[in-house]
Every structure is written in C-alpha cells, then in structure tokens.
C-alpha cells in the first residue's frame, strides 16, 4: 500500500534531505533548491495522504474504535517492548498538513540568509524530521525520542543565527524543554513498571509486558480500569497526568512556564520564529490531546479545574504582558502565549466543542502567528529595529504589505472569517458547555454538582474578556506602526522594497488565513471522525461516567 509507505517516507525524507544538503560544495543555490525540493516532496506526500485519508474515512460521523490508518508497527527495542509505530488519524493529519505547508513557506522565507546557509538548512531539515516524527509516532518512547530530536536543531538554529543574546535564549530554551522531557522520562519509567502489573480480563495491552503503544493504552480496558478513578493506580495516574501536563505546558507554553518563549522568539531569526510559533508550540497541544487526554481520561476529569486555570491565566496574563511590550516581536510572542491559552482552556473543559475549538485554535494560530512573525521580520530586515514607538505611517509607505499585515494581525485578533476566530469562539462556547457534564459528574470530580454552572460561567466570562484585551494590544500596535503620517526613513524603494518572494510568503499565508476562516470544515472534516474515537474514554462523557459508576 503506497500510502503506508508515504507516511514513513514523510518522516525520513527530511533526514535524507538533511544529508543531501551537505553534499554540494560552496554552491548555496543548489543547497536551497535541495532543501526546497525536500519540503515540496513532503508536502506532496502529505497531500496524497490527506486525500486518501479523507476519501476512505469520509467526514463527519463518529468513528467507532480506533481510526488510525496506514499504521506501521515494527518491533524496535524488543527488550523493553518498544515499537516503531506510526500512523495517521484526524488528530495529527491537519497538524501534519500545517507543518508541510509552513515548511515550504519557511524555506522560501529563509532564502536570503547568507550566513552558513548550508548548516542552517541542514539543521532545519533535521528539525522537520523531528516534527514529523513527533506528530506521526504513536509509540510513547518513539514520541519521546523525536520530541528530543526536534530540540537540538532548534538550539543551534537559535544559538547560531540568532540575535545579540542568542546563546542565552538558546540555552534557556534548551534547559526549559529538557526539564519537560525529564518529566516525560519519569512517566515512561512508571509505565514500564506499572503496566506489566496490570491484571484483569481486559488487559490486552501487552499481556504482562510493558507497552508504550499510545493507541492501545487509550483503548485498553484493563489499563483504563487500573489507571482510572478507583483503579489500583489511580494515584499514579494523577501524578503522571500532572507530570505530562507540566512537560507539555512548557512546550505550549502555559504561564508560568513561558518565559523561554519571548527570549527565544526575540533572538531567533524570522524563519525560526515562524516555525517555533507555527509548529513547535503545537507539539505541546498535540501531545496533551494524544497522551494526557486520551490515555488518562479520568485524571483529565480530575484535573479539569487546574488545567482550566492554567488556560485562563495564560489568556489574560499573556494579553496584558503583550499590551505592555515595546518590542514588536515580543508583543507577538506574548500574544502567542495568550492565544495558546485558549487551546489549554478548550481542552480542559472536556467538551466536544471545546476540544474542536482547541484543535482549530492550534491550526489557526499556526498560520496566523507564523504570518505575524514574518510580517515583523519583513520590516525588521529593513528598519533593523523593532521599537514600536519609532515606527509609523507604514500604511502609506508600504500599502500592499500593510494590506496583508491587516489580514495577519486581524487573524491574530480573532476576527471572524479569518483563521483566528473559530478556535477562540468554539473554545469559549465549549467552556460554557462544560457545566453540562459537571452537573452530572461524580463527586470526585472537583466542583461537580449543581454549583458548577456558576463557576463555569465565571470562567467563561473571564476568558471572554481576553477578547477585548487582544483587540486592545493589536489595534494599539497597528496604530503605532501602520497609521500616522508617512515617515521618510521607512519608505523603501528599488531593491529595498518588498520583494516578490516576500509577497509570495505573505500572500500564501494570508490565503490560508482567509480560507480556514471561511471554511473551517477543511479542518473539521479531517478531525471529526477521529475525535469520537481518540477519546474512547472521553469522547462521550455520558457513557464514560456510566462506566465509572459501574467501576465503583
């Protein structure tokens, strides 16, 4: 089956490309072409996968059981029963598409880097390798390995091609993420020892052996019973959930684990900021859905309030921080913190609407944040500073660019018919919806019962105010940078004017921003079939609660 092959090719083509990039001797053009070619090949593979998946899965309608397709399952490290499992489902396919599209765009965006372009692209392709691996791997250990693999290239990409305080930002990024991955490691040790001890009829995972197969764990009755509420490992489950949450919250990043993000963004070169905000942050959200919420549904219910608080704080706090920034790029970086808060909130409340919203927010923010960072980069390349106070009148001097900028920033602002809106709206609506299941939830769920309604409404109201703050800082920025009388120092002409290549990058992103905003079903038609199944313990909360009541 060629598509199965494509899925694995998707992981390894970038690795091959990374090697191939090293071959040509002092011939930057060839290097760039190789890199671009690799990205395009990946994109084509990915599109083929997407079409086949859509064609065979159809859209809309809850899948029953696992809808993982094109699954490859090879024994990797037999001694610990670690497998090489890759597969595609609605949970990772849209993110894969996002990654592929952004890769092409970003390689185009980094076309004019002179400094060691070969090394840059080689590292970037390695990063691609890591990203595809993270999204495609369905084995916990494999996931962990790729999670780390994606870390190192980023360290160097920031550390070598970054700004004045690049080493600082790079090592900070590295240390933060390392702490996160160590939490993962501990959970993995836990799996290794606890899973074999699970006994019971439904224990189908690895009959007495450890298993890191995330899909199997999510669906295995014995595992769910043991790690579910009232199960033997209920306490462990809660610990594991929080450890995993911390390690992914660092990646997302959620306040207070976010301080690496502004530094990393400010120091990183534009293309790297784009991929960092566009895809790497999404790894955290994706992992939350794939691991935390799918494997520990009960712990997720137990932790809903804590997680929701993380999301809420991120939304409001990030927005306020963004408002106070005078560095343009920092503002955008903090806006990422605020926007990813909706992802966490939407996941926390455990409603289908919220989950859809969270997922769409990841895709939409992937486009809009990448675009915003590029918009900043385009000006930074010419003005060589990012002081919001010193800009002004760009609307006059670069009208076409400003038109595209409006699309980008208003998408970030969450304007309807742009990619920022559906995610936010659905997350918020889902938050309100949470009182449905909370009122009927068992008493071990925090704040369960009739009082839940008021609490949930309060959370929703606070979260909704984030919308105003967003409008505040985006518009203020827009006014300071683009409005006002034209300043001569920012009027560029000739080869200083915005190049067609740059217009291409911005235009493609703008098109996707509008496309996703007007037809969000592009995403939902791919995800919807999975979201019922990937959350066997969670998708249908009513039946889940019933089973729990049965369990007790």
């Amino acid at each position, binding site marked *: 089956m060629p598509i199965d092959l494509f899925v694995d090719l998707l992981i390894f083509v970038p690795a091959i490309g990374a090697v191939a990039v090293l071959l040509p001797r002092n011939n930057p053009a060839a290097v760039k072409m190789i890199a671009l070619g690799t990205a395009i090949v990946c994109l084509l593979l990915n599109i083929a996968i997407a079409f086949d998946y859509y064609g065979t899965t159809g859209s809309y309608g809850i899948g029953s059981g696992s809808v993982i397709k094109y699954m490859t399952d090879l024994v990797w490290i037999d001694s610990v029963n670690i497998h090489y499992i890759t597969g595609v489902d609605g949970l990772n396919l849209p993110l894969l598409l996002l990654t592929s599209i952004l890769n092409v765009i970003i390689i185009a965006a980094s076309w004019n880097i002179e400094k060691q372009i070969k090394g840059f692209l080689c590292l970037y392709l390695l990063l691609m390798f890591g990203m595809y691996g993270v999204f495609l791997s369905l084995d916990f250990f494999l996931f962990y390995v790729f999670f780390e693999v994606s870390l190192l290239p980023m360290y160097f990409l920031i550390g070598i091609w970054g700004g004045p305080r690049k080493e600082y930002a790079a090592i900070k990024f590295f240390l933060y993420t390392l702490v996160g991955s160590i939490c993962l490691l501990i959970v993995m040790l836990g799996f290794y020892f606890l899973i074999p001890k699970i006994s019971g009829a439904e224990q189908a995972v690895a009959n007495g052996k450890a298993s890191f197969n995330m899909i199997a764990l999510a669906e295995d009755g014995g595992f769910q019973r043991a790690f579910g509420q009232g199960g033997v490992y209920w306490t462990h489950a809660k610990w594991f959930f929080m450890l995993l949450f911390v390690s992914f919250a660092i990646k997302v990043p959620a306040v207070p684990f976010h*301080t690496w993000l502004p530094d990393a963004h400010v120091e990183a070169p534009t293309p790297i900021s784009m991929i960092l905000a566009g895809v790497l942050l999404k790894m955290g959200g994706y992992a939350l859905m794939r691991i935390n919420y799918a494997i520990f549904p009960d712990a997720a219910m137990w932790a809903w309030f804590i997680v929701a608080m993380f999301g809420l704080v991120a939304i409001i706090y990030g927005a306020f*921080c963004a408002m106070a920034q005078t560095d343009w790029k920092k503002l955008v970086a903090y806006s990422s913190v605020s926007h990813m808060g909706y992802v966490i909130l939407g996941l926390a409340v455990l409603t289908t609407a919220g989950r859809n919203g969270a997922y769409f927010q990841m895709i939409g923010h992937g486009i809009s944040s990448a675009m915003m960072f590029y918009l900043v980069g385009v000006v930074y390349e010419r003005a060589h500073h990012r002081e919001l106070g010193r800009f002004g009148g760009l609307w006059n001097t670069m009208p076409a660019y400003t038109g595209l900028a409006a699309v980008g920033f208003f998408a970030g602002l969450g*304007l309807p018919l742009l990619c920022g*809106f559906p995610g936010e709206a659905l997350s918020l609506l889902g938050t309100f919806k949470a009182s*449905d299941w909370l009122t009927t939830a068992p008493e071990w769920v925090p704040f369960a019962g009739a009082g839940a309604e008021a609490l949930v409404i309060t959370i*929703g109201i606070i979260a909704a105010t984030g919308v105003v703050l967003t409008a505040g800082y985006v518009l203020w920025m827009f006014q300071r940078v683009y409005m006002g009388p034209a300043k001569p120092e920012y009027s560029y002409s000739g080869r200083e004017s915005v190049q067609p290549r740059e217009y291409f990058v911005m235009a493609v992103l703008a098109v996707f921003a509008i496309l996703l905003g007007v037809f969000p079903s592009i995403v939902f038609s791919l995800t919807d079939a999975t979201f019922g199944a990937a959350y066997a313990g969670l998708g249908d909360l009513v039946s889940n609660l019933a089973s729990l009541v049965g369990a007790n």
Partner: protein
Amino acid sequence: MTVETVSNLLVAAWLLPVAGFTLVILFGRLFRDHEKPAWFTVLVMGTSFVLSAIALWQYMANGMEPYCDPWPWLAIGEGKFLEVGPYVDEVSVLLMAMVTLISTLVHIYSVGYMHGDPRKSRFMAYMQLFTFSMLTIVIANSLIQLFVGWELVGLTSYLLIGFWYEKRGPQLASKKAFVMNRIGDTGFLIGMGIVFFKFGGDLVLRSAEPGLGIFGTMAANGMNPLDLSSADQWWLTIAGIGLFCGAMGKSAQFPLHTWLPDAMEGPTPVSSIVHSATMVAAGVYLSARIFPILTPGAHLFISTIGLITLVLAAVIACAQTDIKRVLAYSTLSQLGYMILAVGVGAYTFALFHLITHAFFKCCLFQCSGSVIHACHHEQEMPKYGGLMRKMPLTAIAFAISTLAIAGAAIPYTEYALSGFYSKDGIIAGAINYGEAFGRNGMSWGSLFYWGPVIIAYVTPFYMMRAFVLTFLGKPRDKHIHDHAHEAPWTMWAPQLVLALFAIIIGWPMFRVGASIHATAPTMLTHDAAGQEHLTMMSQGFDAHTEMAHGFHLTHGFLLHGFAWIIPMVLAAVIYWNGFAITSRIFGLPVLKQLHWLVYNKFGFDGLYDTIFVALCKIVAKLAAWFDRMVVDGLVNLCGWLGKNIGFAVGGFDDQVVDGAVRGTGRSAVKLGGVFHFVQGGNLRVYVLILLAVGLAGLAVVVIPLALGWAEPAAASTAATATISALTQ
C-alpha cells in the same frame, strides 16, 4: 417564484458586495484614475439592490412563509454544527432592500464626496465590504452568523473611521470604536455561551422543524421567559442581558456611547451609512431578533438603558456646535428610542423606526456632508448661516428630513412624515409599559413614558436649531459663505431620493409597519412566551392605530401631530441670529457651568480615559514587570544562589555563556568553586580527605555496635538502622 428562489436572490445580493470588494482591492490599483473602480462598486451595489428589491416584491406579493436555509459551519463534535445561512421573512427582506438601497445611494454620494482622494477606490472597496458585513447581520438566522457580521461591521467601521489615518483624531477614534464594540461583543459572547449550553446547541434562532433552534427548544421545554417561577429565569435574564451588551456596544447605548460621536472623524459618507443608518441600528435589530428569550428582568434593563441614552443624548445634542456631532447625538437619541421600544415590548416598532430613521438620518448626514464639502471641511455651525441660498437642494432635503425626524404630521389627521408613525408607536408601547408598572403600584414606571414623550418635544428643537444655524439667518463667516456652492449631482441626487423616502416610507399604504408587525406571530409563536409578547405588543399597536383610549387626550399634542410645531418655532426664534441669545443666557453663573458640562458630554470620555484606559495600561505594566521580575526571577533564582555560593568559595569564571539562566549553569559553575578549592593538587590533602571520609563511614556503622549491640547478628539491623536513619 418560490421562497427558495427568493432566498437565493437574497444570498446573491448578500455576496455580491464581497466580490466587488475583492476585485477592487486586488485590481483597483490597475486603473490610473479612481473613477472606474468607484462606479464599478456603484454598479455592484445597484445590482445587489435590484436583486433584493425583486425579492422583496416577490415575497410581499405572494405572501410567502418564512424560510431558513441552514449551512453547517463550525463543527462542535458528534456530527453537530453551528449553522449559518439566510433566514427569509418580512423583516429580513425589508431590511435587505433598505440596506442595499441606502448603500447604493451612499456609494453614489461617495463618488462625489471622495472626489480627488488618493485612496478613493480603497474607500469604495471598504464600503462594499461594509455592506456585505451589514447584510450578513440582516440575513442571519443564527447567533454565530450575527456575531460574525457583528465583528465584520466592527472591522469595516474601524477601517472607515480610520480612513484618514494620517490624522491623529481618526486613529484614536477608530481604535476607540473597535475596542468599545469589543467590550460589547464580550457580552455577546457570554450571552451566546449561555444560550449555547442552555437552549439548543446550534445557536440557530428559528429552525425549520419545530423543537429545534433556540426558540424551538424553549417551546419544546416549555420555557416561558415571562414565567418568573421557572428555573431558567435567571439564565434567560443573564443571556438576554449579555446579548444586549453586544447591542449596547454596536448601537452605542449608554454607557458605551462615547465612541459614536468620535466616529464622526470618519468621512461623512461613512457617518451617513455606518454610524446612522445601518450599523448602529444593528443592535436594535439583534435585540428585536432575540426578543422571544427576553425576560421581564432583561426588559427592564433594556428599557432603562434605552431611556437613559435617549434623554442623555438629546440633552447633549442641544449644546453641540459641530453639525456632525449634533447629528451623531440625535442618532444616539433615536437609537435610544428604538432600544426602549424593544425593552417595552414594542419591538416591531423598533424595527419600523429603524427603517424610517435610516432614511432621514442618512439624508441628514449626506446634507451635512454636502455642507461641509461646500465649506472647505468646516464643521462648526457658528461659521455657517444663510447657506439656503447657496445650496437650495441640500437645504430642502435637510428640511424634509428634519421634519421627518421631528415626527411632523398634519394635526388631527393621519397624514404625516415617516418619523411620526414609527415614533408614535414606540411611545404608545412605552405608555403601555409604564401603565403596566403603574398597575403593579410602581409609580416610577411612568418614567418610561414621560422620558420619550418629553424628548419627543426636544428632538424637533435641536434639529431645527441645526437647520436654522446652518441654512437660515445671516452668514456668520463671510469667507466660507462666499466660496460655498451647491454639491455636484452625485451628491444631491441621493439626498433627494432619501428625502423622498423619508416622506413616504412610513405611510400605511406601503404597509411597512404592518408587514413588520405581521412577523410577530412567526417570530414568536414557537413558544408560549411568544403569545404573551404578542398580546402585550398588539396592545401598543392597537393603541397607535385606533387612537381611542384615555391617555390619548393627555398626550394629545404628540399623538395628534402638534408636538413638532412649538419646539421648532422656539428654536427658529432663538437661533435666527446665531448664538446671540444663547451666549447671553449661558453667560449666567449656574447655567454657564451647566452648559459647559453638557457641552463636554458630561465628561464621559475623560472618565473612561482616566479610569479604564489608564487602569488597563497600569495592569499591563504590572503584568510585564511581574513576568520579568518574578516569574523569570524564580527561574533565575538558582543563578542568584549560585553566585553567592561562588562568592563564598571564591573564584569566578565568566567565559561561559553569559546571562542569568543557564541558572543551573551559573550556579553549578560557582559550586564548581568548591571543587576547584578541594582539588588543590596537594596529595596529602587528598589522602587526608580520603581517610577522614573512610573512617567517618566506618564510624557510622561501628558506633551503633559500640552502643550496646554486642552480638553481631543484631549488628546488621543496627547498622542498617543508622544508615537508613542517616539517609532519610
């Protein structure tokens, strides 16, 4: 023609402008001059109007049934969706026709007004986008689509107000408008959220099949908003007020009203359509559309807001000297009327007034635009006067609209300008509402009809004031007066058309009000609550149509068409010589301060700037400080510790990566000082440490033996006990 076709016609009319926008924004720059793109947009709007006109005619002629055509948009899981799509009933077809007509006229007007502006085609494109957004609201059947349109009109209003972004005023005004609207939208979101989890998941107002949609769900669950005992009362009230917050933002109701006057910084065509005729009325439209879920609590809230707004705005309008600001405040006041109408239950009259008001207020703004255009963008009325001779057509149009807004009618007859009919219905409804309070022994309820009644006398006054100051009397600024000239046809023609509509649109023969009222059953009968509202409102309607009952005599002047004469005469007398009289009056001590206060709009702007804006910025600064100092500071804490340990052990090393966190890094480097010290290269130190540690370890395990465990067997326990004691 079937109703599906009508719906498709409307959809076409709805989507045409966005096509026009796209084409112009992308390819407009290809043309040397801006005229071709501009006229192209006019053409597009015209087509759109024709389509919706046909739709209107067909719908009315065949007396069709309401029809909705849901499109799935946002997936909310389990195969369910938030739906968008057109909803066709009398109200939507009427409003479609009205908006497209006015938009077409304003497009033509803009062609003239924006002549020579370097960004004219972009302006026209924005207008197209705005029309599309407005139609999105008008045609919406689901809250989510309403919200989409809501935000889009907000955006276009932002772009249009800030069209002359080089100037500081428009920058601030546009930002203010957007943020204020967003505050309202937050309420909208909240209300939407509550509705989402309480009444039907798809946020559709009316569904084709009963039992679905918001109203349908309510009907199916037997929720009656008027039934105070029902458990959902509370949620319904919150939801209603939340959604109404959106209306407050968009319709600039108190306390979110301050953005509208500032919005006059935008080009006058913008004011004429966005900030008078259509967008600001969207709030009224929303409130009317969600009427069936409004509880008595929500009613009280809405009517109070409406009352405050209409009084406040009217008073302020009397003191303004900027012609556009006068019109802006009169718009606020009229919006107050409409909101009040919704609050008191006469929402069909709110819609009716929305339509009539749209025509005459749009006309008024266009006239003021022509005047400003003629007077070198001078907007201060003290500089005007006696322009009637210079620009008669404009003056006529202005006069007609003034009469219309004043609710002029031939006494004791039914013959009147459009404003009379709609406003009268509102007042009748208000009286009803007040009476209802009175019946329950709450005499203060009478405020709800004294307010609108009195302001019904004030409105003609300040409108006449504006007219006199502008067109009559002697010219007060020679220079301006000399250069003044009649506007080109592209500007006066639309004014006359609008004036014509301002006269006739309300006439019963055109059945506008009646057909809107006819929607009441279709809007309401889905639920029990609807029936109650129906009766409650038809009382108001009958009161208006029959003019029979007792309270008519008490308010005879208004209801028999006298209310406009006296204030107008008064205004004409006072202001015939400009500000000669008033300046003397307001020279008096107390009145002086009073006038100052009113002139400065009761200082709401200053209040908001000082409190909310400043507060927000302070909080932001605090947050950023906290982030830098505390959150990052915690991360750097180990670095700090390390540094001090480093001082203790001495020996620094700064060739490693600089910066604070490599916190672990730094601290460990300094810790390294210890090892640096110990690893002194002195052999005997090494051996000493070795033996010391060895003997210590020995002691740890031997001492317990010495302490009385003679027999070795127990020694193991003793040793392990001490060891574990040491390690825990």
